[in-house]
């Protein structure tokens, strides 16, 4: 799993944080074309954003979100020098995180 982050200034003020998570986001309904068996569900459940260590936003994802999701949030209070963190957990209990500084 790998998670990448990009931060850019938002036109509406604040900073837009874009997170690209590498994840199959399997719904559990898709069948393996060779075996005919259903591929087990494997998807990100929650994605939490933090600003300087404090949680500021949480996204509840699920099977409606596609593979390798790109999630973006605008943090109104972010300013240069701040650290933005993201941490996600999936239905299997696997997780990953990333961090970036606001420039």
């Amino acid at each position, binding site marked *: 799993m*790998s998670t*990448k982050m*990009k931060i*850019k200034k938002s036109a509406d003020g604040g900073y837009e944080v*874009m997170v*690209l998570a*590498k994840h*199959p986001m399997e719904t559990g309904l*898709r069948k393996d074309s060779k075996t005919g068996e259903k591929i087990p569900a494997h998807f990100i459940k929650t994605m939490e954003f933090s600003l300087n260590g404090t949680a500021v936003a949480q996204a509840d994802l699920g099977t409606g979100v*596609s*593979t*390798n999701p*790109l999630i*973006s949030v605008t943090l109104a209070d972010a300013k240069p020098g701040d650290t933005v963190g993201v941490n996600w957990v999936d239905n299997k209990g696997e997780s990953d995180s990333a961090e970036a500084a606001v420039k």
Partner: protein
Amino acid sequence: MGNVGSGYSRRAKMKKLVSLAFAAGIAMVGASAVQAISEAEIKKDIEEFQGFFLKRFPGLTLEDFSDGVNALPQYAHRRANWEINMEFPQFEPEMDKAAEEWAAPFQNGKSLADCDLAPAQNYPVFDAASGDLRTVEGDINACLKANGEEVIKNVKRGKMARLVAHYKSQFNGEKMAVDYSDPGAQAWYEKGRQFYWAKRGQLNFSCADCHVHNSGNSARGDVLSAGLGHGVGFPVWRTKWQVAGKPWGTIHRRYGGCNNQVRADGFKAQGEEYKALEFYESVMNTGVPLKVPSLRQ
């Protein structure tokens, strides 16, 4: 079943193509079963093909067609999403990987960076010595072979696609300029043109049926792209292909998919049919800038 020409005489087929062309408002000038196609005729084809789309989608410039279906007003509701995604595309890590692979040394110390490839905007390139068409995929494998390395077997996906994307992306912004001055190249052009306008498959569609006559219209939930600009964004990373873990695709992979969608047998990637088709489409794209890779639906 999908094979153009079975059961038809060449003359009847030509007649059918010409009447189809007239229906689309594009005249196929001078095409006959006996006379070879000329450079002048190809130039006229380009003018008429491009003119058709510029008229059908007023407000779009030739350069806009680099964006493929995303350029069309009928796709406006999805364009914003595409633009955001293109800022941080899912293929970014793969492109970094491809850049590394491009510089990675062979057994003999050289690398793909030493290969003698033509500028991306000139492909497919007609090779007068062999009479064959060179594609980027073909040239990469030829170079690997010449350097004693193993060729890449799957020329539609994965490693080959990202290598082609890496190479072509270095020429982004360059306008398509395929050389069709040689009679041998013109023969390939004619083959590709015929493929494009011929009906095939259970659905009995030609490429033109969707991408000329119905460009901008919807096929179920999707918008049909314009034929103008086809390929300038390839290889592509398709979200549809991403689901099964095979997101990359070269243009020949897409051709196969399109043929399957009209329930025709697809042809071999890097085989004669698809190379000819790629040649025709690339000539029609003369002047459209490269924009590789693209993120598509």
